[in-house]
């Protein structure tokens, strides 16, 4: 029987990244396992963390993430998050966490943000691309970001609704003061994005990931599971990760970590897994 921490990856109808996400967790020294949305709550009580993977839960009907946020399984995720267990939402998972009111979580359970349709000068609509993110000012307290440095992390995005929005009285200072700024879009040098294409969707404050006040819940639009290994990095990518990819031989490509691994290894370190 495994003593590794168990991480439930919740598969909703329309999720499409659950198995690679579970594999990343397992490769990071955890036990990632996929559980469907109709799994009884009693089967989820023993898990140590949750991941809501990317995809199109319920076909994005009504609004991306809106229906999954109301599902019974989400009660288990919500209760676990409130109890301090780590919860990660990737892309559609992030949309679900926003619709749950878990992030920014100033009033937990109240919907205080939106992931609206991409809309920025120069670009609108669905976008699939590699972008750079950097952790926010207090992100290192998060179980998902504890090992991340301040250097740019290149990750792929693929979404049409990824623009973080808040009510008009919220400014970037409030996000930073409330420790909500988890990840910020940046250029390849790590400087915060000021416009398209570094900020790919017009997100408020160039926000790519949002934390709850305790830091255990992270909603992020980029896909770290698609950058877990070095071979997943495009050879044409500028910056040190692209350099490493271009310089890698066949064996190095097979074994070397990619930039997305830090999220999963941070969780493993947080849960006491030694590598």
């Amino acid at each position, binding site marked *: 029987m495994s003593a590794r921490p168990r991480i439930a990856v919740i598969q909703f109808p329309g999720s499409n990244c659950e198995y690679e996400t579970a594999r990343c967790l397992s490769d990071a020294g955890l036990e990632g396992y996929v559980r469907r949305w109709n799994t009884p709550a009693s089967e989820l009580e023993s898990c140590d963390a949750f991941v809501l993977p990317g995809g199109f839960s*319920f*076909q994005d*009907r*009504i*609004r991306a993430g*809106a*229906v999954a*946020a*109301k599902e019974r399984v*989400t009660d288990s995720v*919500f209760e676990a998050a409130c109890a301090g267990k780590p919860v990660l939402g990737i892309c559609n998972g992030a949309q679900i966490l926003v*619709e*749950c*009111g878990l992030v920014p979580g100033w009033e937990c*359970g*109240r*919907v*205080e*943000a*939106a992931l*609206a*349709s*991409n*809309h920025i000068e120069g670009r*609108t*609509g669905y976008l699939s691309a590699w972008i750079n993110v950097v952790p926010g000012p207090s992100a290192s307290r998060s179980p998902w970001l504890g090992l991340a440095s301040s250097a740019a992390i290149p990750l792929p995005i693929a979404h049409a609704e990824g623009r973080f*929005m*808040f*009510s008009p009285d919220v400014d970037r200072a409030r996000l930073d003061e409330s420790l909500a700024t988890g990840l910020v879009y940046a250029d390849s040098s790590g400087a915060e994005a000021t416009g398209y294409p570094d900020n790919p969707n017009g997100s408020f404050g160039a926000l790519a990931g949002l934390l709850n006040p305790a830091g255990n819940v992270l909603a992020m639009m980029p896909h770290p599971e698609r950058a877990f290994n070095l071979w997943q990095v495009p050879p044409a990518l500028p910056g040190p990760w692209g350099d490493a990819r271009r310089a890698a031989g066949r064996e190095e490509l097979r074994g070397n970590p990619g930039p997305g691994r830090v999220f999963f290894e941070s969780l493993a370190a947080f849960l006491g897994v030694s590598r």
Partner: protein
Amino acid sequence: MRHVLAVTLKSPDPAAITALGALAGFMPGSAPVRILRYEVWEFEAECDRDSIVRTVDRYPDILNPNKQRGAFLDAELPPVAGDGLVWAGVRVVDNSSGASEGWTSLLRKAGTGISSVKLSVLWMLGYPPGTSAADAERMAGETAVAVGRTRGLLANPVSQAASIVLMDGSSGSDTVSGV
């Protein structure tokens, strides 16, 4: 001049069915017994309705006659079959819509005479016969905006605006292609 086109699927709308099931599950006290969903295109134009119909005929992304039907609205709500249900509408508009801006730009450049396009979604919520208009309005209001996990569904409170429209029986419609 303002022309409002309501487009709906000829087949049952999957989003409406999902919304019906979701509301019955987590807000049974306010859930309607039937939901219809319309995409509403609001055109501001110098041209007459026939010109708008010709434009709509040219763009199947507005109305695909193989799978959708449309009707111009002369009232706030489209007419619905007289099945005795009490209907209330919830109209949801994005606060900042790239789609509306994109269509405005496209149709302006195409020389259609259309100066602006505003897209929204209209959810028609049907309540059991005998429901008072006040109760229908209250229940529609409760379901309209997702203020929390267990309260509201159809609009996000930050990125969208929702308005409740009640059926007053004065609606009329003109049919466009595809019906």
